[in-house]
């Protein structure tokens, strides 16, 4: 079996007065999108910088396609593409010129670099803007060109550090589509994000980082299940009804919203919903609103990154 695109074990990195990575473990499966999710300062960018040879870590081991990032940096660099937080393009050059330049710096001959640039511009929907200065591009277009520039040599592993930060909704959707196409063509993607819906939409697996180490890992579904599966939320119109409902249902009351949240039992959310409806109906309690839903990734995230564990909500 070939080595995984990325394998990190017990990675530590300290800056002068802060610990950026505190024993990070990570393994990424080939051909997937893996999201590193975490609040600002969780160590996401440091992790990407270490994985892409820009920063040397203090302790631990990082292998990219089996190559050690510290001792075999040149081989690692041939294996990866990097899209950092700042757009790494020359604003004064045209889109095409940027791609040709990076292609030639990657060692392609001029004609090969031109062919690859044309192919990427077409693929990323930038063919019409190819011969305009990058400074005239929208944010979304710059990001797409930035991603294209990182794909010149068809890297096995692409790092995307907060690829949609600062983009408008249209730009975000375009960049998401671009990222999906990258994976379809066989490149593995590691993306960092602080947007939960982005991880939810794109990632096959999510690693939640907090203070430089992994605090949870799994698919979006698994992370949500970790918070107790589906819940039924009932809202009633007045305080009297709320008091009666609290007596009747085995759930978590929220007097401000006149709401009770009932966690689904082992038989599943629908079954719990039916039971709740029957008992409310039998007691003659009027209901304003009744919903069945899974926990959102936001709830998972807030739960996981809460300063103390065991906090409800």
């Amino acid at each position: 079996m070939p080595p995984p695109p990325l394998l990190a074990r017990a990675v530590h990195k300290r800056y002068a007065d802060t610990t950026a990575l505190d024993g990070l473990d990570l393994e990424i499966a080939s051909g997937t999108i893996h999201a590193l999710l975490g609040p600002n300062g969780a160590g996401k960018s440091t992790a990407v910088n270490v994985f892409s040879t820009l920063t040397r870590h203090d302790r631990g081991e990082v292998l990219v396609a089996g190559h050690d990032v510290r001792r075999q940096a040149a081989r690692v660099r041939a294996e990866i593409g990097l899209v950092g937080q700042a757009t790494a393009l020359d604003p004064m050059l045209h889109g095409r010129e940027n791609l040709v330049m990076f292609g030639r710096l990657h060692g392609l001959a001029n004609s090969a670099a031109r062919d690859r640039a044309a192919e990427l511009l077409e693929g990323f929907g930038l063919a019409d803007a190819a011969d305009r200065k990058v400074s005239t591009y929208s944010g979304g277009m710059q990001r797409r060109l930035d991603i294209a520039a990182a794909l010149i040599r068809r890297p096995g592993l692409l790092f995307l550090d907060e690829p949609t930060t600062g983009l408008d909704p249209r730009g975000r959707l375009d960049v998401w589509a671009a990222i999906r196409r990258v994976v379809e063509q066989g490149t593995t993607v590691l993306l960092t994000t602080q947007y939960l819906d982005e991880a939810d939409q794109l990632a096959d697996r999510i690693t939640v980082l907090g203070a430089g180490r992994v605090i949870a890992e799994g698919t979006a579904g698994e992370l949500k299940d970790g918070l107790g599966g589906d819940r039924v939320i009932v809202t009633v119109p007045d305080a009297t009804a709320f008091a009666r409902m609290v007596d009747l249902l085995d759930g978590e009351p929220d007097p401000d919203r006149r709401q009770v949240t009932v966690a689904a039992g082992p038989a599943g959310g629908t079954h719990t919903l039916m039971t709740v409806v029957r008992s409310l109906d039998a007691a003659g309690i009027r209901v304003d609103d009744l919903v069945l839903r899974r926990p959102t990734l936001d709830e998972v995230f807030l739960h996981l990154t809460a300063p103390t564990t065991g906090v409800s909500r």
Partner: protein
Amino acid sequence: MSALSTAARQTWVITQRDLKYWQREPWAPIFNLAFSIMLLLVFGYLFGGAIEIPGGGDYLDYLLPGMFALSMLFGVETTMGAITADTKRGITDRFRSLPMSGVTVPLGRALADLLNSAVQLAVLMVGGLLVGWHVDGGWGAAMLAVGLLLWFRLAMLWIGIYLGLTFRAEGALMAVQVLVWPLGFLSNLFVAPETMPGWLGFLAQWNPVSATAAACRELFGNPTGLSDGVLATYAVPLALAWPLLLIAIFAPLSARAYRRLSK
């Protein structure tokens, strides 16, 4: 050989990129040139009449080699500005993540900036000849003078790269743009150090840019304003040694700063 030719080709790619800036945004080099010409006019015609050169000679002949050296000194801003912009934009990080040698980017930059400075120098020299600057040395000596000016520019280049990589705070470039002025004035570029108060004259003599200007005056056959002292005897060796020393200090410092950018 293939590694070397690859590095050479990549260096040229970077140079081409930097040269394209002239085509896309010609105003920066044109403004630089216009500024040098303005200084030339201000000193040559406004102040020049009141300035005496020890040992005699025409002030314009004294001034022009100083102006050439000054425009090389100002090159430190051009280089620093370009390096700072790249580093802020993240393009430097992408360069660092590419499978290429770490010297490629600074070498490409160096080549482009030297070409830029050579063109500036050529325009200034032609302008100087038009307003009455005399060259009394031979062709070989004049070429050596041009070589010494570009050699000094190379030292400014490495200082610019180092400053651009190290001081990236807002305003750092502006600080350098202001600080080159006292460095430029505290020299023999505009007036002879022998006319300054003793200690000031001493500092001006030991300013690296003074050695380059003095050597150029000697080689172009222009008045040097020097009667004795180290500069009078060893201008050319000093004009070779000063940049060498600066490069020996700032090239390794730059390489280190480049490796440590996102430490």
